[in-house]
């Protein structure tokens, strides 16, 4: 799969660089190099604002992790996880809880290892994807985030006067799309069972 993303990004990059530059050579050749170099400047600007945002939030998130608050959230989520994922072995359900709660709290670096472990614990060794794994992957793709820290920071950096007014819409949209995902996965696996 990693291979496929690489191929797709490679394809986008190559096509745009070659086709874009050839078109520009015809219409405005004098701007070719300045266009490419301005990308470098923009990257530095963005990375510096991101560095500021990440530094503050990663510091706060470290406190959150050290205080054990994420484990409390994981415990609170357990009944919901049991409902969505059905009966799973205790090791898997623990990792699922950590994965989903750290996603909700914006602890991106904590959610990846727990996600990998949860998928491993749910694996039945058949080489085929099962319902729990599909569910976890899709719920992660829709990501319910309680506090979209990076977006708020970037909006402030770009002069927003009401940077947090997107918290509520993001919450509503991600809850709706996650619900749709859960329903679709449950329906799809019911359909598969009947077919067999």
């Amino acid at each position: 799969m990693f291979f496929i993303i690489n191929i797709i990004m490679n394809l986008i990059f190559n096509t745009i660089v070659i086709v874009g530059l050839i078109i520009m050579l015809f219409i405005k050749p004098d701007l070719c190099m300045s266009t490419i170099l301005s990308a470098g400047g923009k990257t530095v600007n963005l990375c510096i604002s991101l560095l500021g945002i990440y530094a503050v939030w990663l510091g706060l998130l470290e406190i959150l992790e050290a205080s054990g608050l994420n484990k409390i959230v994981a415990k609170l989520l357990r009944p919901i996880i049991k409902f969505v994922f059905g009966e799973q072995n205790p090791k898997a359900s623990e990792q699922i809880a950590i994965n989903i709660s750290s996603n909700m709290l914006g602890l991106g670096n904590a959610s990846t290892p727990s996600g990998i472990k949860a998928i491993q614990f749910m694996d039945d060794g058949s080489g085929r994807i099962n319902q729990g794994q599909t569910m976890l992957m899709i719920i992660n793709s829709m990501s319910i985030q309680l506090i979209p820290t990076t977006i708020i920071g970037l909006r402030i950096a770009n002069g927003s006067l009401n940077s947090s007014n997107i918290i509520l819409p993001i919450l509503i949209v991600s809850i709706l799309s996650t619900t749709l995902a859960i329903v679709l996965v449950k329906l799809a696996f019911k359909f598969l069972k009947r077919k067999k």
Partner: protein
Amino acid sequence: MSNYVLPILIVALFVFAIIKKVNTYSVFVSGATKSLTLIADIFAYILTIFIALELFTASGLSVYFCKALSPIFSVLGIPTELTELIIVKPFSGSGGLALLTDVYQKYGADSYISRCASVIFGSSETVFYVATVYFSKTKIKKLGFAIPVAMLCLIFSVIISCLICRFI
């Protein structure tokens, strides 16, 4: 109202951490230090997306591209200005970030388009990254209908993002 949420949460976090006897000062510092390696990791990815984006707009390719997609997008109520963001986000999170800031700078951070972009960016993850990394330690090669269902939900979330930003 929403301006009070984060500061109150941060105060609550500090009070909770102090009760739990966490040395907040040194823990904060060690967390904040990690931001440097994080930026070093994504810097070049952001650069490639910016090069592509600059060429895409300067050459006029984006105009044709948006024109081709605008009939579909207008039916679904999605602004065509967000085409690049919607296409790149499922593949590359850092690329998505670059495109998001580009939208902020072009249209102003508080405009309808920028708020749509924020909600679209915030309500989905990089589907293909999740699919790749999460299954990296299993023998599973085919993800069945996981990817199609994820894409369907993604389209759904983009449509309601744009819809909800009209009202909230």
